[in-house]
């Protein structure tokens, strides 16, 4: 194996035998730990002569007479040039210590030192540690200016990303995602995170106005790995672990007796306070009707009207509990996760290649929720002549996911129903003695709450556990990403590059509602099969010119053209009445209820240019311009132009700072520019649109979209200033200030409801700004060869503010749902009824209302007992956090390594709607939070929790009472690793072995147990599929 590897590598390198003039012997070690570097490539500069270091890091090489310099390189380390000498000793620095890393930017790369813009970068070593099946989730807390929410624990689901505040109100605020230079139109879960070399987030105008049309919300550049010049290396990585529920449920009642007593109280109070019955009659009424009101469910062995004492409201002391099920316990169990990755990297000065294969299988902690992915990638770069290069980059993957219908407030979602359902309702049907009913197939019978005499008032017709197990919601996605490029150098300073890519995503889904029970029971099963094909075609042509004059003045100019066209076509059909209850294929069903096909296209064309100038690597200037046309807008308002200027000053290059020892690096930078956004979720928002509907076999037209022919680009001005520094060779970071003003916002304006449907129209209106500061800091506490300890943190603070309202809406402030749009306030400025506590006399909820004098001026506030009389107020709170960010630390001690990453948010307010519904006055079948213990009763008059009162709309009306602090801390990742010593392994032909234990999403600290504020930017929360915690054990072997 060793020999084979060695020979193969020599062959690939194309080592040629030339007339040897000088014999060089050398030794290559790692600067980190002094260990020999095996397989480092040593090439004589300007020739194809070279070799690789052996198992002890030694090499010998015959250098031709013209050879002056050796280039020593190794994967993951900084290449080094050394003069030819009979004996050389080379210490290679690992790449993480590289002070001048190269970052991927729009249509090229840039050295960090010369970069005038603002970008965050995340390397493969961080990404590969996390067990994310979808790479966007890796960004949580990872870099300054990047805010992430992930509302679903479904394996492979994606996170939502915001770069430097909220870019738009109604149009998309999602950043543009660019993979290997091409905008990516598919889901990121089709890319294996292990194939990613780096992910950089471009944040300011200088960095992303070259993506003018679509750059306003930031750009995420994902670069996949490529082959490195050096020995052929093969890496095998396996990790095996399990998934469990990451965020626990709310603290709710888990005892049937408590629920019966409290519901009795809710009914009694409704009669007593609401209907004016006497205390005695109210109690009698509640006792007599309790069980029937709850659908006939009585989990005790006494008669229905004997369950609760009408005088005391206490459960009959002789009643014995017959059954008690816990829906979450029945629904959740640990799921297996396994990931295998194999990659081969090889490279010579003529050809380099990277090939990988990955297999991931991941089961969530709940039934029928999983992901299986096979992915393969090959990247080959050829140097054809000294003036021509070309390459191909092929990615292919196939994914199968099963994703249950959860996340909304539908009863077939275990996350909604399981949280809301009162503890008196069983998962399985019971007989009068509380024994399980056994079905004809010998297993327990699930309770759907619709038997003849038991009618569950919550989620009747549903049993999420059984439905989830029998419904089929499968999606299969086949993806091929093909890219080719060719590059020609001519006339000395010119480079012409053409990139062409075609990304093809084919998705076919099955949504089968089981005939066994639930929604499709009485139609004997319902299945929808749909197939979607997305073809994203992109081509660009780039002409680069670069030249340095007198070793001082460097110029780089880029001219480019890009065109893209996307076509999404879909075909789907639905049938009902299925013969085999487990076969979802349409041929198994007989009643066709729907068949449809659609096609949507999008095209974008841009012309762009960029110029960069630097003087003695001290002063940098850059400017860019782009003209873009988008098919989203009317031909008359289709084209938009976007530009930027930027500059940087590397102060440490100045003489007056060169002798300051502790200052290793200091750079000041600033940029300004404009970008656009055309991301309206409609292909042609400038046209009125109708859909064709069937009406008695004839054609009907329904008006569904109000077109606006004047609709055009949303524009933003973006200013950035900041500095990067490195002190004492151990403390580094950057601090930046940004100011982004967006105007002509693409806004879907709600019309007065009296204008009828469609109820809104897209306009370019309003003005908004996002401004703030962000910082990224890193400190090497210990930095010795055997012990390394680094801590890092990032933080972002921003302010979101409306500067202008639509002219035809009240300028003093305009209510849109639960927010008040007001000049000077954030777009998520909470607004609504204000809770004024509880009336100690009778336990009613109170709300604030205005008091007026005779001439109608507001002179004060009073408390009223219903929301209709109440007034709406600004709460003075918004969902925007004061600060968000992350912490991380990594420790390496000899063969051991450990790293920890956390993310946090301080400030911001979210509406805890789930908690609100668990604090109702009593809704038949809905459970209560344990906080209800402190409700108002005549014995507990001084409380903030109103009395129980069945069916009251006011008790838990949406007010600031349920607005909850969204501050949180989450432990994102802990990794512990052990690397076997190299000397031991080299004897068996293995280059490196590392064992590791990794845990992701380990805990969340939030204002309330069960409350996950990480669900949205707007502060709305709901019964989402809660996040997974993953634990794995893995090993990584390198040959």
């Amino acid at each position, binding site marked *: 194996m060793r020999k084979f590897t060695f020979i193969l590598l020599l062959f690939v390198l194309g080592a040629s035998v030339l007339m040897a003039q000088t014999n060089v012997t050398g030794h290559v070690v790692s600067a980190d730990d002094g260990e020999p570097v095996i397989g480092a490539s040593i090439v004589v500069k300007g020739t194809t002569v070279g070799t690789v270091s052996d198992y002890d890091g030694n090499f010998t090489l015959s250098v031709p007479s013209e050879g002056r310099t050796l280039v020593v390189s190794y994967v993951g380390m900084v290449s080094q040039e050394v003069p030819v000498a009979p004996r050389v000793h080379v210490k290679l620095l690992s790449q993480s210590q590289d002070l001048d890393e190269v970052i991927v930017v729009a249509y090229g790369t840039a050295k960090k030192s010369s970069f005038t813009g603002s970008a965050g970068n995340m390397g493969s070593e961080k990404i590969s540690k996390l067990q994310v099946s979808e790479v966007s989730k890796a960004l949580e807390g990872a870099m300054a200016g990047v805010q992430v929410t992930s509302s679903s624990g479904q394996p492979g689901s994606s996170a939502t990303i915001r770069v430097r505040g909220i870019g738009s109100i109604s149009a998309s605020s999602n950043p543009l995602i660019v993979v290997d230079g091409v905008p990516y139109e598919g889901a990121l879960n089709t890319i294996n995170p292990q194939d990613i070399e780096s992910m950089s987030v471009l944040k300011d105008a200088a960095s992303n106005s070259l993506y003018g049309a679509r750059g306003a919300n930031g750009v995420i550049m994902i670069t996949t790995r490529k082959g490195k010049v050096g020995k052929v290396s093969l890496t095998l990585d396996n990790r095996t672990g399990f998934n469990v529920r990451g965020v626990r449920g709310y603290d709710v009642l888990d005892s049937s007796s408590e629920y019966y007593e409290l519901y009795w109280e809710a009914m009694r109070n409704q009669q007593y306070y609401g209907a004016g019955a006497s205390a005695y009659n109210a109690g009698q009424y509640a006792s007599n009707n309790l069980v029937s009101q709850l659908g006939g469910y009585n989990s005790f062995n006494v008669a229905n009207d004997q369950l609760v004492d009408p005088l005391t409201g206490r459960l009959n002391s002789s009643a014995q509990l017959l059954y008690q099920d816990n829906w979450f316990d029945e629904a959740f169990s640990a799921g297996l996760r396994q990931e295998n990755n194999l990659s081969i990297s090889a490279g010579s000065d003529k050809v380099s290649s990277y090939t990988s294969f990955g297999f991931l299988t991941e089961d969530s902690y709940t039934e029928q929720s999983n992901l299986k992915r096979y992915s393969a990638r090959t990247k080959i770069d050829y140097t054809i002549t000294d003036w021509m290069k070309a390459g191909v980059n092929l990615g292919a993957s196939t994914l199968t996911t099963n994703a249950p219908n959860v996340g909304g407030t539908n009863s077939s979602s275990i996350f909604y129903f399981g949280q809301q359902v009162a503890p008196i309702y069983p998962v399985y049907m019971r007989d009068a003695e509380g024994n399980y009913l056994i079905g004809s197939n010998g297993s327990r019978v699930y309770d759907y709450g619709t038997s003849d005499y038991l009618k569950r008032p919550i989620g009747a017709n549903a049993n999420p556990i059984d439905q989830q197990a029998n419904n089929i919601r499968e999606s299969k996605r086949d993806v091929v990403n093909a890219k080719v490029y060719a590059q*020609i150098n001519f006339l000395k300073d010119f480079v012409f590059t053409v990139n062409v890519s075609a990304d093809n995503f084919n998705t076919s889904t099955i949504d089968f509602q089981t005939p066994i029970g639930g929604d499709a029971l009485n139609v004997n099963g319902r299945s929808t099969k749909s197939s979607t094909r997305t073809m994203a075609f992109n081509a660009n042509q780039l002409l680069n010119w670069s030249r340095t004059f007198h070793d001082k003045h460097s110029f780089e100019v880029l001219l480019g053209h890009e065109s893209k066209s996307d076509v999404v076509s879909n075909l789907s059909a639905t049938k009902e009445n299925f013969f085999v209850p487990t076969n979802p294929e349409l041929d198994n069903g007989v009643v066709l209820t729907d068949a449809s096909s659609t096609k949507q296209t999008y095209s974008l064309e841009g012309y762009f240019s960029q110029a960069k100038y630097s003087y003695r690597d001290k002063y940098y200037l850059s400017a860019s311009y782009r003209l873009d046309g988008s*098919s989203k807008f009317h031909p008359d308002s289709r084209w938009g132009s976007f530009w930027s200027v930027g500059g940087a000053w590397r102060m440490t290059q100045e003489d007056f700072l060169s002798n300051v020892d502790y200052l290793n690096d200091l750079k000041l930078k600033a940029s300004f520019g404009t970008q656009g956004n055309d991301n309206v979720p409609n292909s042609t928002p400038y046209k009125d649109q109708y859909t064709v509907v069937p009406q008695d076999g004839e054609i009907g037209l329904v008006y569904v979209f109000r077109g606006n022919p004047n609709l055009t680009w949303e524009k933003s001005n973006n200013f950035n200033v900041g500095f990067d520094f490195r002190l004492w060779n151990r403390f580094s970071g950057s601090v930046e200030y940004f100011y982004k003003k967006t105007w002509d916002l693409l806004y879907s304006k709600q019309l007065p409801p009296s204008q009828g449907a469609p109820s809104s129209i897209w306009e370019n209106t309003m003005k908004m700004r996002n401004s703030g500061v962000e910082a990224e800091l890193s400190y090497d506490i210990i930095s010795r060869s055997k012990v390394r300890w680094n801590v890092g943190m990032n933080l972002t603070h921003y302010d979101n503010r409306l500067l202008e309202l639509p002219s035809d809406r009240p300028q003093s402030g305009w209510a849109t749902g639960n927010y008040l749009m007001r000049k000077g306030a954030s777009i998520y400025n909470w607004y609504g009824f204000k809770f004024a506590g509880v009336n100690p006399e009778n336990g009613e909820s109170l709300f604030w209302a205005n008091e007026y004098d005779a001439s109608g001026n507001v002179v004060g506030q009073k408390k009223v007992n219903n929301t209709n009389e109440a007034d709406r107020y600004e709460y003075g709170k918004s969902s925007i956090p004061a600060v968000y960010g992350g912490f991380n630390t990594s420790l390496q001690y000899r063969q051991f390594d450990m790293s920890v990453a956390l993310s946090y948010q301080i400030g911001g307010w979210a509406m805890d709607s789930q908690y609100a519904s668990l604090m109702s006055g009593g809704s038949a079948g809905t459970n209560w939070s344990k906080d209800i213990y402190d409700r108002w009763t005549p014995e507990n008059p001084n409380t903030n929790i109103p009395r129980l009162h069945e069916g009251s709309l006011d008790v838990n009306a949406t007010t600031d009472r349920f607005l909850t602090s969204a501050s949180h801390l989450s432990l994102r990742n802990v990794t512990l690793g052990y690397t076997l010593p190299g000397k031991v392994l080299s004897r068996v032909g293995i280059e490196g072995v590392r064992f590791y234990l990794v845990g992701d999403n380990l805990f969340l600290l939030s204002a309330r147990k069960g409350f996950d504020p990480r669900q949205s930017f707007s502060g709305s929360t709901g019964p989402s599929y809660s996040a997974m915690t993953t634990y794995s054990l893995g090993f990584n072997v390198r040959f």
Partner: protein
Amino acid sequence: MIKKNIQHILIGSMLCMSTVGCSDSFFDTGNSSVVTPDDIEEIEKNDPEALVKIVQPMLLGMYTYMTSLQNGHGDFGHMSYVHLSDMMSDEIAMHTAGSGWFTFDYGLDYWGAQYTRPYYYWNFYFSMINNANELINKISLSTDNKELQAILGQAYALRGFSYFMLMQMYQQTYVGNESAKGCPIYITLQEGESIPSRAPLSAVMSRIESDFETSLRYLEGWSRPSKIHVNYDVAAGLYARVCLVKNDWGKAIEYSRIARRNTPIYTSEELKSEGFNNINSKEWMWGADITAETTTIFASFFSFICSYDAGYGGAVGAYRKIDAKLFDTMSESDVRRSQFKDPNGSYSGEELVFPNYTNLKFKKVSNWEADYLYMRSSEMLLIEAEALAHQGNNAEAATVLGELMRHRDASWSQSSVSAEAVYGQRRLELWGEGFGLWDKLRLGKGIERNYSGSNHLGQYKFNVVPKSWFMHYQIPLSEIDNNQYINSGDQNPSPYQSDKQY
């Protein structure tokens, strides 16, 4: 030199291979799943006589819109408002709260501007109006094309009907409140100025009357392809409903007679087997033909009203029962007793588990394809009889009512009936068909659920005093927030808590 040429050739060919765009047609994109005005113009261009091809689908789209799912399971278009009329009354007694849909309607708790129901109702009928205006706008009002006239006639009828639905709900009844604030009036530019503020009821009423008169003019002599369309008879019938509200008894008699001239009524035998679920049924004058493609399944009228199916009013357990007191007004020989589970009857099978008084009137059609009833001839007969009685022609009223009663109750024989007596029969005949609340409002009646032997659900066992604002809606908050011509000073008052008597 050769190298340079090769380079040039290569660069040229790379450019050619990779360059797309650079032309206007590159941007000719869009969403082929929707129809745009360009497509419409194209159809018109190809055939100058083709305006019908455009406006006919727009009209049919309005009929589809009437039955389509709007917001959640309790809001499925026109029939959800038909249903809430009976829920907000004392026609239907709810057996359990079920899954909660329509319970706040049943409790008359949804009146406030801040709740969803006033918004849904308002937005729905204004959408119908907006669609009708779009359609009217496309056709010259002086057209002599028969097909276009028929389309215009239907659009006017639907618009008048929508204003009628709004007028009743957002203000006290017309008579005696003519100058009270109604709703905005939007019409097409060719007809005149719209009124974006709350126009007085008198203006809304004039608009409604004018729309129906225009409609009748256009629809005269037109024979419709199916009962989903409003024809001359149906427009007259809708107009007769308006006349009842206006207390214009003469016109109510005139138009209800016109309306039912071509449609017979069920015999008692037919009524027994009638499921109120098929548009081809004998009495039906106007309805919706629900098919596999248009059904809204669980979120549908039959899900709530049909006791035999898996829906909310069926297996879920929120059975729709007839008010016990109303049931007891039926004589023993009344054939309509068979439409409900009689507490003294004997039942088997599925009906055995139904609670007493559960309706058996609306029967199951498989696959949720039961059709919707909008108007039938018995209603027209009852309008005529009631209007006659109001006029004081009690004997003539008895004669007209007798035409119906002959087929309903063999023991019925009266030579003179009061308007109240006609109303009693009207409640029994049209139970569940959505007249509960509207009749209470126009007749100035309250709601009576709190009586000895009441079969209403515990917490909803209350009476509501006549003319209470509990029986109306406030203008939705989002209208006030977004319409600069309506502000909080234009809002309806809140009801007095004491209007509900437990």
